[in-house]
């Protein structure tokens, strides 16, 4: 069965320091991987995705993620954290399904609360 794990419920970082939010996955074949962010009282916003190609993916708000096939990981990173980055982050893998027109649903990790302090 396909699954995603975010091993940390919470990550605390000082403003200006680099941040990493971890994600590992289990899926057959080549994964389609996504990161979403949820700010307080808001919906999920798409940050970035890995479909194919370069293992380092750049996304919105200065975030990037590195796809590592051997470690089955897709960690989210940012070189210098901002207080405004404080939010709930979700990693997801797309279920490709068995039939072309099926699949497409996302399988999410449990989320990681990022707190950036001044």
């Amino acid at each position, binding site marked *: 069965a396909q699954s995603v794990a975010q091993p940390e419920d919470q990550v605390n970082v000082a403003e200006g320091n680099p941040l990493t939010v971890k994600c590992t996955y289990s899926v057959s074949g080549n994964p*389609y991987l*996504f990161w*979403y962010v949820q700010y307080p009282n*808001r*919906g*999920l*916003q*798409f940050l970035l*995705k890995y*479909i194919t190609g370069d293992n380092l993916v750049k996304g919105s708000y200065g975030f990037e993620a590195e796809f590592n096939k051997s470690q089955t990981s897709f960690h989210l990173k940012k070189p210098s954290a901002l207080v405004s980055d404080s939010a709930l982050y*979700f990693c*997801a893998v*797309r279920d490709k*399904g068995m039939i072309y*027109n*099926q*699949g*497409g*649903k*996302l*399988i*999410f*990790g*449990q*989320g990681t609360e990022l707190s950036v302090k001044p």
Partner: protein
Amino acid sequence: EAGVTQFPSHSVIEKGQTVTLRCDPISGHDNLYWYRRVMGKEIKFLLHFVKESKQDESGMPNNRFLAERTGGTYSTLKVQPAELEDSGVYFCASSQRERRETQYFGPGTRLLVL
């Protein structure tokens, strides 16, 4: 371009009552998905429409949940009768047929069943 919209933003109902959630996808998006997050746990898939057809409803928890997508445009998710465990945030997402990899989410409906 308008994003995915959901109505209502919040709903508080009593156990046994009926609630209907609505989702308006991004115009032109054939794919529409419903998800929910219950009690701070992971976000779980409920079902997937391609236009007006249910493509995958494997995540629907039971027959108290009924989803429709009239004319392939907006979608409704009805819970009847609601139970306490139905409380949570219900998200809708849509994607283009050609670029189905990226799903764009609405703000969610927070449902509280008392």
